[in-house]
């Protein structure tokens, strides 16, 4: 038996998504910019998907959805598309628990002279509205705070943060890659100016995502060329991936409430079964949390036991989990996210994440908990 509990890294494409991609590969493979029938058919696929994604986010207009090659490009574009409109460096605010696609882009901007403030988080990984209020200054042009944190599952008070930001005349972006498709996200209710989405976190393929751009917002392109996506993002659209993305968005919207409830119950079951286990300490907020996200650290572990040790042991038991986010998979460094939450360097190496999905059932959770306890015993964790 194999148990896949790494849905925050990527998800298995839904069978309907695969079927759609197959249809497109065989029948609707045209270039959406071509003027002939093959082009028309591809354009229809493209615009249908744009509508489906817009509906998932309750976007005011399908044209606010611009397809990208994924969450990383959407994040880079949001930050660079706004900041590159300024000829002199200004001020940017991000949180201390951003995905590397935001953190590394902010680092690059800092090398270009931009002032970058990293908002601190509390022990649950949450940004406080007060700290944002204090950090905003007249030079602030953009604030970017992650919606749902990938390592510790914490959801930020985005609506409040957006209101504060906009009151100060700055723009607000959120990386909602881990949230979209799992919790209801309404861009109009949130009031955000920009929002990043990745398709492969909710049963669509990798290599495609989107940036929501609030109507009327000016943004400089990141990719220059043939002027696709109404000049916002050049490059022939990956029609197969986009079509799959659209189907996944429609499925996510149809199942959102039921699946959110089911997964949060499984998540709570996971935490509850380990509530008496002092060797594993839950990380992140328990109240404001992604429904499919379970994460721990090992406060008492001997030095040689890290999150990666557990991941490897679980792998031998055919259970897929993750230590930190997948992009860091090659490194044994302490997690910057856990450190920002106040954990010591040693503990910040022991983070482990289980992310549940549509095929996860209660028995998977029960079995994983059992295996996890045995591994801890075997490793001699006290």
């Amino acid at each position: 038996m194999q148990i896949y509990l790494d849905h925050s890294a990527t998800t298995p494409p839904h069978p309907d998504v695969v079927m759609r991609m197959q249809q497109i590969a065989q029948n609707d493979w045209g270039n959406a910019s071509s003027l002939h029938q093959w082009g028309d058919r591809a354009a229809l696929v493209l615009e249908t998907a744009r509508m489906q994604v817009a509906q998932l986010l309750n976007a005011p207009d399908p044209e606010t959805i611009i397809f990208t090659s994924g969450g990383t490009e959407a994040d880079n574009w949001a930050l660079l598309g706004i900041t590159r409109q300024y000829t002199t460096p200004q001020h940017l605010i991000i949180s201390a628990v951003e995905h590397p696609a935001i953190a590394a882009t902010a680092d690059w901007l800092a090398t270009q002279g931009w002032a970058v403030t990293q908002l601190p988080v509390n022990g649950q990984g949450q940004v406080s509205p007060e700290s944002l209020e204090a950090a905003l200054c007249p030079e602030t042009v953009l604030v970017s705070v992650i919606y749902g944190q990938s390592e510790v599952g914490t959801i930020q008070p985005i609506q409040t943060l957006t209101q504060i930001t906009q009151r100060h005349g700055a723009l607000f972006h959120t990386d909602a890659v881990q949230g979209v498709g799992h919790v209801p996200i309404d861009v109009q209710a949130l009031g955000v100016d920009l929002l990043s989405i990745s398709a492969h976190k909710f049963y669509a393929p990798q290599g495609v995502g989107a940036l929501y751009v609030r109507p009327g917002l000016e943004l400089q392109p990141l990719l220059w060329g043939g002027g696709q996506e109404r000049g916002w993002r050049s490059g022939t659209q990956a029609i197969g991936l986009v079509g799959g993305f659209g189907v996944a968005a429609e499925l996510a919207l149809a199942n959102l409430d039921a699946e959110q409830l089911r997964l949060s119950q499984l998540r709570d079951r996971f935490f509850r079964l380990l509530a008496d286990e002092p060797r594993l300490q839950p990380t992140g907020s328990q109240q404001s949390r992604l429904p499919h996200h379970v994460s721990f650290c090992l406060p008492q572990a001997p030095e040689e036991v890290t999150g990666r040790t557990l991941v490897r042991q679980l792998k031998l038991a055919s259970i897929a989990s993750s230590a930190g986010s997948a992009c860091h998979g090659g490194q044994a460094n302490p997690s910057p996210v856990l450190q920002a939450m106040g954990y010591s360097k040693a503990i910040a190496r022991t983070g482990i994440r289980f992310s549940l999905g549509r095929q996860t059932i209660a028995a998977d959770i029960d079995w994983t908990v059992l295996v996890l306890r045995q591994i801890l015993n075997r490793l001699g964790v006290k």
Partner: protein
Amino acid sequence: MMPYWTDAFGNPASLGHFYGWEAQAAVQQARETIAAAINAQPDEIVFTSGATEANNLAIKGVAEAYLQRGRHLITVMTEHRAVLEPCAYLETLGFKVTYLPVQADGRLELTQLSTAIRADTILVSVMAANNEIGVLQPLAEIGYICRSHQVLFHTDAAQALGKIPLDVEALSVDLMSLTAHKLYGPKGIGALYVRRRQPRVQLAPQLHGGGQEQGRRAGTLYTPQVVGFSVAVQLSLERLESETVQLQQLRDRLWQQLQTLSGVVLNGHPHHRLAGNLNITIADVDGAALLLVLQPTVALSSGSACSQHQPSHVLLALGHSAEQAKASLRFGLGRSNTITQVDHVAQVLIEAVRSLRQNSVYS
């Protein structure tokens, strides 16, 4: 692609578990196949979302990395917009760009290139095969000139991969943009070849993040796309010679028949061009009206798919007027086209032109 849609869906960066491993092995194998296709090393291949991103990465990445050495770039007026637009963007940042003209046959004149290279030139970007007129540029000669001036040489080979032999060593190419969907692969995947040895090309990443592709391009790779790309490359290389002959025969047959019309001109060099490409200008006929009449019979275009509403900048560079450029047709023949189809298209086109001319103000 299909096995990776369902069974091996892992994130190639997830090294902690089996799903990620299987994906990573497939990506590595694809990297080797694509590298071998252009005589490069696997670690010189950076996967991207397509040729547009590869061109942007090459041009902006080199410009940013060599900022201290110089701020002058050279390209050609007939390049794809995915090269011209990043260059125009760099101009807004204070870079200088020389746009070389082409000869009437679409080919670059080499002495013009030599003269244009300055002490502060950091990059020359010349496409391998033009997307509209199919003209092949003399890459080996250009590469030689760049190498002897110690200037980096980038080529957009989106249209050339799998259609003509490409060898980064023989051509002295330092950066090469590739895409899958022009050779029967999926859309949304491409690559940039970046030379690592003699010289080692510095490249400033243009997508920041998780450090994938050895820090040169962040973002999760999609395994099926990468695998589909490499299969398409492999199939094209296996068939390269036979398909070139087949397409050339079809194209020449089409051209021969179309020449029975008066006032038809071939755009671009007659021999130094892609086997499947035919681009013609038809005098005394309204291009838009012609396309409309042809539409039920044949899918073709008046130029690049990305910019159908303006007269082609490529044809203007050949010396055509805007009017002539609009009355031009691009035929891109492919693997599945047959003699019967070609004959049918020629017949329909000839009739359409004759009938349009009869009713037109020109006659």
